[in-house]
Structure formats: C-alpha cells, structure tokens
C-alpha cells in the first residue's frame, strides 16, 4: 500500500521504537530526524509541540503528537487494526495493558538506582501471564485475530526490552517465547533487529538497561 512519506522527529527513546518497528516491518518509507537531549534543551521546538513532548509525526498535512495516537493512525492506514470493530476493541485492550507495563518499565529505567529492580522482576510474571494465556492454546499466531496488529508490535518491543533487563524472564512462558521467535523471524524485522541502526540505539538514552 502506498503511504505518503512520513517525517518523524524523535529523541532516541524507547517509546518511538514501536513506531519504527511497525513501519520497518510493513516496508513503509519514512524520514526520521533525531533530536538529541542537547538539541531539545537548546531549541524552541519543545514550545512548539502541543504537549511539549516528542515524537512529532507528520503525514501530509496532518501533524500528530502522542506516540500512541501516531501508532493508531499508522495502524489504520496500514491495515493493522483488526478486521472489524470487535477486533479493533480487543487490540486496543491488549495495547492499553502493554502500555501499562511499558510505563512501569520506563519508570524503573529512570530510577536513580537498582533498588526497584528486584520488586519489578518479582511482579513481572503476573504482568506477563495474561499475554501468555492469550497466545497459548490454538488461539493463533497473534494477540488478536489472524493478522499482526499494532498491539503485536508493542508487545514484541516490550519483550525484547525485558529480555535485556532479565534474560530468563520468559523461561516460564513458552507461548511468549515462540511468539517472539516467530515475529522476530519476519524478514523485515529480522533485518532491522540485526542492523547497526537498531543495535547501536540505546533503549533509553543515557540510562542503564
């Protein structure tokens, strides 16, 4: 499907990665302007952003802020939002839960020290269990329906981040393991995850993983 060239301005943050992964997998072309923290502090860009935040996304004459609004817009354009209204609602539900866990993860990453890590990892199986349950049995290959959706891209990135944080975290979750393996084997994702572009990009700039 032809997609307008998309410009994206974003800092090297974990949040924008979900957008990149979706576009890369779908073979959609986009321009990307990376803003460093120094540039952000020095420029008037922040004042021009609706909520004072990045990313900014431009698609033709539409300027969008808020990572998840951007993701939803792209998902609608690229056919990654389920086959009907019911699937769309379930995709939203899955995505909201993934965002909850992502927010917890980001909060942990920005803590001053490692004191919260133990508690976080102890709670992690409870957080991952609903996704394991959804993907197990004869449900199919994706979180909702039989096609990849915006929620799947978010979960893939979340799982990759968590494997960096704690390599054994998926040991008790065979369906999540096989899901991750399957999705990472998709040709465009496989190429992207093995690229220098991905490997050289810190999950959260300046923070430990």
């Amino acid at each position: 499907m032809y997609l307008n060239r998309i410009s994206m301005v974003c800092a090297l943050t974990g949040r924008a990665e979900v957008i990149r992964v979706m576009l890369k997998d779908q073979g959609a072309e986009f321009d990307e302007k990376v803003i460093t923290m120094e540039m952000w502090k020095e420029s008037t860009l922040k004042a021009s952003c609706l909520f004072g935040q990045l990313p900014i996304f431009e698609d033709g004459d539409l300027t969008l802020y808020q990572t998840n609004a951007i993701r939803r817009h792209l998902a609608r354009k690229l056919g990654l939002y389920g086959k009907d209204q019911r699937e769309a609602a379930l995709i939203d539900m899955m995505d909201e839960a993934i965002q909850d866990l992502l927010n917890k993860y980001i909060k942990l990453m920005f803590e001053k020290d490692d004191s919260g890590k133990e508690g976080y990892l102890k709670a992690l199986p409870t957080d991952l269990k609903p996704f394991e349950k959804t993907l197990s049995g004869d449900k199919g290959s994706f979180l909702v329906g039989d096609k990849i959706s915006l929620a799947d891209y978010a979960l893939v990135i979340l799982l990759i981040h968590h494997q960096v944080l704690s390599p054994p975290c998926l040991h008790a979750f065979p369906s999540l393991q096989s899901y991750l393996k399957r999705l990472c084997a998709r040709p465009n994702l496989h190429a992207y995850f093995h690229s220098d572009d991905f490997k050289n990009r810190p999950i959260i700039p300046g923070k430990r993983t």
Partner: protein
Amino acid sequence: MGPYTITYFGVRGRCGAMRIMMADQGQEWKEIVVDFADWMKGDLKATCVFGQLPKLEDGGFALYQSNAILRHLGRNHDAYGKDGKEAALIDMMCDGVEDLRLKYVKMIYQEYDTGKDVYIKDLPNHLDKFEAVMAKNKTGFLVGDKPSFADYSLFEVLLNHLVLCSSCLDTFPSLKSFVEKMSARPKIKTFLDSEAYKKLPINGNGKQ
C-alpha cells in the same frame, strides 16, 4: 450494539467518562457494583483478562481497559471523528487527557496531603494545552463539530478538577465554556443531577 453492563467498584473513577458518554448518547446500561472486600477474595479478579476493572459488556462481548472501552463506544456511537484525520487528532487529545488523569490519580492516591497545593499550582501548565486546542477549533469540541470520546474524557476530568479547585478554569475561558455547555446538554444534565451519579465518590480513597 448493547445491552451494556459496567462492572466496577462503587466510585466514578475510571468509569466516569464512559458513563457520561453513554448517557449523552441516550444509552441505558446496567451497573454491577463490586464490593472491594469481595474483590480482594480474588474470584472475580481471576476472570478479568488483566486482573482489573472496569469491565464493559456490550451484548455478549466483554472488554477491559477504560480507554479501550471509550474507543469502542466511540466507534459504536459515531464519536470518533468523521475521517481518519479527525480520528487521529481525537486519539491524540484523549492521550493528552489520559496523561493529565494519571497525574491527578497519582496526586489523589499517593500525595494528596503533601502534594495537593503544588499540583493545583502546576495545573495551568497542563490545562493551557487543552484551552489552546479548544479555542482554535471554535466548535466547542476538541476536534470536529460534534462530541468525541476525547471530549467526554476531558469533560469528566475537568469536573473532577473543579471539585479539587473550584477556580481552576477561571483563566481558561474556552474550557470553562466547554464544561458549561457539556453540563447543559439535556441527557448529561439529567445524568449529573441523578442519584446514580451524585451518590458515587469520585475516588476510592475518599479524597477529591
């Protein structure tokens, strides 16, 4: 679509916006009120996909996550913009409201006594974004010319903030007018005047 059932605790909380939306859209719904002590026993919790409430049932279809529910209602009731562009802007505004809601909830549950004054002082720095969008759109709604789920969410969060600080919209004329107009919509007015609405505390810890 429908019939609708909401399963939730006896508070407005994360069901505030969806109830106002359903009321305005002329929808009836059933309420299943969960006692917190019963909830802690775990039987109902175990049936919820993410171990959380609220739950919306739309006919035989069960949905969790309050913002997923708002979007679903938006699709059901033509409150998600007239095209893809409006839908994207509505998503963006709803996400902005959610950010504010999260800050509010954090203050209410974790920092009320120590953080309330600072929160109120900082509030204009968050409300000004919504004021700017509302003023620019000129229709009395955030996006387009009819209420979207983002409007219901913003309206509800502003009602809660007016309880926290009755003067918080005094320097935001577009937001003040928005609240007045939404409150005056007949079905919303009936709902806000109802016992069903008034009897519920906003938050679970009684702070507001």
